[in-house]
């Protein structure tokens, strides 16, 4: 009994039912179908996890998808430890957020639409994580991108929303461009796109070089980097991070589910899944680590000065995703996935809390216009505070464990850039704590800075929302306990369960540090976290005049950060505008109009005007006719005789 098939196909069924009957039949009750389906998936996922824990993995094809010559690919499923963890993450978050949405989206005119998209998204995400081949992975990959597009642009009558959806899709396409080529390279190299044979054979190609567009490159490095392109796009890493902040145009549950917990982590999942390939290429790993590190620093710095509630969390997401890549890049795939897993909880929680705040504020997002909300919405405040502590890496909370694991691996691992990325990671940990608590303090503490109506309207969110918050909060607090570091674990007699669990799939890097060093790393990261919180407290609750002074004094820094390093403007300048300009002025204006059409119309026109000229030869005068005849004779005679 392949009950695991239920995991993706229940949400799919929900989607189909909703999209067909939601508008006319289900209407206000559309959520039932979706919630039941996703909950069902969750149940099956848990059962699957149990199976996997008991050692039953599975790799099975459902049916043959495409056959063409030697190219053959199926729709198939691979259930192993990695998949099982991802299934739990996805179904759990999805279920909770489905429930949360009942309250949050209540009364929206596209209610059924929202739930059908969510279901579709869940289906695609599950197909993505359950795939046993690259093409199906790509299917899920694009599928979640599509749902993201729909959901970001959910309020499609708003230009900014539809713009953001479009941007997300197109930016992702840039990444998929490389990803697709990567899959093609894999097929050309291995003759198959199934994971199993590819990963098994990868080692034998490690030394091969290949000529790619005129450059000789290491084959495995090339494949790894091409695949990583996909990750960059999907997980919003530099330089393709630009879509994620804009994606906050979508409803908040969407931000929580797609743009925090699940979809954006697909890139990390991809790298983890392909660890057999990445591990073979030092270059590729280095690229991954550095990309992650730089992105996390980059996003964190931007997060410092933003005022948009959701955008701050979005930059935080980018930053944390960078962390995950950092982990993978130093060989700590488990750590990366572990962080993915913990991050899913606390980041989803953060977003949902933000949603709750928005709900109360009537859609207001500017934290400068909030303040003192804690007394109006205690549940929201409490859960969000805990989530922030978790992200700040306060010991005992989920974020601490995964972050510590990453930093330690970076510090101790074999990666040549390990120390560097550890340093960056630590700085980011500080920054993360700072901006997270800046958010908390500005939003919930102090005096309310909004309008009077807004203040009047402030209230705690409905039960469906708060219960979800609390459920997630449990995760944000405790999710990390499955991965207690050996250092502490040894002391209290708990093993690092997740690391052991994942070892068959992801392996585990050999650390070279001493216990003392490990303690030191942990201490530094904890210190950084608390320093960040402390600084935020100092600046935003004690000396509230300093931030303004600072931003005045370092106005250029502030401007750069506030404008997100002008990356969007840069793209517009070097990519978008030149393309449109050349499309208008060169391709349409010159090539088509002045060259091709000039010939296409010009030749007939020339013939036409030649025709009108030639007409004049026919003067109507007999002698002219005769003369032409005689000239004809003369010419022929001359030609024939002089020949």
């Amino acid at each position: 009994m392949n009950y695991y098939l239920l995991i993706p196909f229940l949400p799919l069924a929900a989607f189909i039912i909703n999209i067909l009957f939601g508008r006319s039949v289900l209407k206000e009750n559309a959520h039932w179908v979706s919630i039941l389906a996703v909950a069902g998936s969750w149940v099956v996922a848990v059962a699957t996890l149990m199976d996997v824990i008991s050692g039953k993995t599975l790799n099975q094809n459902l049916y043959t998808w495409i056959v063409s010559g030697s190219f053959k690919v199926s729709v198939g499923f691979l259930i192993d430890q990695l998949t099982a963890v991802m299934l739990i993450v996805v179904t759990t978050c999805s279920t909770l957020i489905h429930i949360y949405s009942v309250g949050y989206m209540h009364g929206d005119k596209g209610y059924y639409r929202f739930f059908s998209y969510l279901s579709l998204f869940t289906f695609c995400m599950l197909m993505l994580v359950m795939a046993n081949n690259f093409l199906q992975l790509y299917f899920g990959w694009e599928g979640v991108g599509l749902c993201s597009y729909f959901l970001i642009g959910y309020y499609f009558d708003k230009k900014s929303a539809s713009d953001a959806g479009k941007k997300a899709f197109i930016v992702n396409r840039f990444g998929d461009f490389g990803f697709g080529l990567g899959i093609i390279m894999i097929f050309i190299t291995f003759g198959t796109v199934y994971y199993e044979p590819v990963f098994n054979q990868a080692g034998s190609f490690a030394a091969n070089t290949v000529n790619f567009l005129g450059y000789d490159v290491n084959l495995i490095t090339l494949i790894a980097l091409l695949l990583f392109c996909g990750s960059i796009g999907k997980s919003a890493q530099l330089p393709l991070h630009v879509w994620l902040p804009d994606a906050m145009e979508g409803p908040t549950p969407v931000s929580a589910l797609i743009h925090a917990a699940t979809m954006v982590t697909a890139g990390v999942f991809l790298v983890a899944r392909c660890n057999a390939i990445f591990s073979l290429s030092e270059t590729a790993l280095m690229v991954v680590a550095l990309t992650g590190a730089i992105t996390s620093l980059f996003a964190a710095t931007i997060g410092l000065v933003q005022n948009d509630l959701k955008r701050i969390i979005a930059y935080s997401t980018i930053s944390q995703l960078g962390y995950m890549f950092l982990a993978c890049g130093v060989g700590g795939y488990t750590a990366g996935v572990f962080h993915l897993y913990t991050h899913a909880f606390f980041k989803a929680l953060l977003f949902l809390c933000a949603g709750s705040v928005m709900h109360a504020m009537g859609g207001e997002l500017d934290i400068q216009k909030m303040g003192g909300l804690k007394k109006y919405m205690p549940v929201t405040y409490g859960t969000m505070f805990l989530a922030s502590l978790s992200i700040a890496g306060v010991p005992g909370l989920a974020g601490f464990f995964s972050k510590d694991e990453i930093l330690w691996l970076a510090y101790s691992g074999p990666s040549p850039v390990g120390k560097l990325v550890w340093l960056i990671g630590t700085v980011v940990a500080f920054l993360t704590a700072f901006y997270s608590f800046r958010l908390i303090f500005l939003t919930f503490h102090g005096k309310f800075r909004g309008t009077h109506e807004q203040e009047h309207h402030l209230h705690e969110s409905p039960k469906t929302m708060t219960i979800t918050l609390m459920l997630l909060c449990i995760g944000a607090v405790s999710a990390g306990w499955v991965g207690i570091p050996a250092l502490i674990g040894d002391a209290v007699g708990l093993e690092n369960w997740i690391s052991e669990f994942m070892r068959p799939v992801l392996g585990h890097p050999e650390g070279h540090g001493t216990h003392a060093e490990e303690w030191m790393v942990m201490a530094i990261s904890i210190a950084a976290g608390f320093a960040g919180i402390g600084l935020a407290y100092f600046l935003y609750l004690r000396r509230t005049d300093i931030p303004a002074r600072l931003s005045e004094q370092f106005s250029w820094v502030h401007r750069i950060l506030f404008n997100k390093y002008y990356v969007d403007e840069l793209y517009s300048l070097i990519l978008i505008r030149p393309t449109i300009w050349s499309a208008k002025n060169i391709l349409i204006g010159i090539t088509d109009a002045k060259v091709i059409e000039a010939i296409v119309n010009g030749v007939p026109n020339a013939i036409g005007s030649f025709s009108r000229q030639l007409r004049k030869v026919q003067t109507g005068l007999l002698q002219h006719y005769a003369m032409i005849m005689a000239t004809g004779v003369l010419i022929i005679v001359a030609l024939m005789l002089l020949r």
Partner: protein
Amino acid sequence: MISQLFFGYFAAVIIILSLLVVTRKNPVHSVMWMLLMFFHIAGMYLFLNAEFIAAIQVIVYAGAILVLFLFVVLLLNLREELQTNRFIGSWPAGLVIAASLLLSMIAALRSFVPGPSGPYTIALIEKETHTRVLGQVLYTEYLFPFEIASLILLVAIIGAIVLAKKKVRS
């Protein structure tokens, strides 16, 4: 020698008269010069032992066709005709074309080699008389074309009547 002189005379006169025909302003004059030229051509035919042809040249060509021309010429308003240009504006072009065509033809004709000789020697023709020989050939070998010629004349009659009759049915 004497034959060459004769030829020289006829050729010169024919050419001069031809030129006069095409250059005279007064159509009547043209026709008259034409008439004179036809006589010379007839003379030349005699010279070539073609008495019958010479005869019809005079009788048909000069006597019938040219007279027809004269009738039509009389339709014209001669007074007005004499005052307008005789040539079209671009007549030099015509001259050049005709002249160069002539030159190239002459160039080609210089290398003329006649075909095989037939049975009708001068002696034979003189013995049988030209008209008789010609008649024999015409009514035996060339009976068919002769019949066609009659049809052509018939068509000419019909055509001339159709085109020129005054009455127009309304």
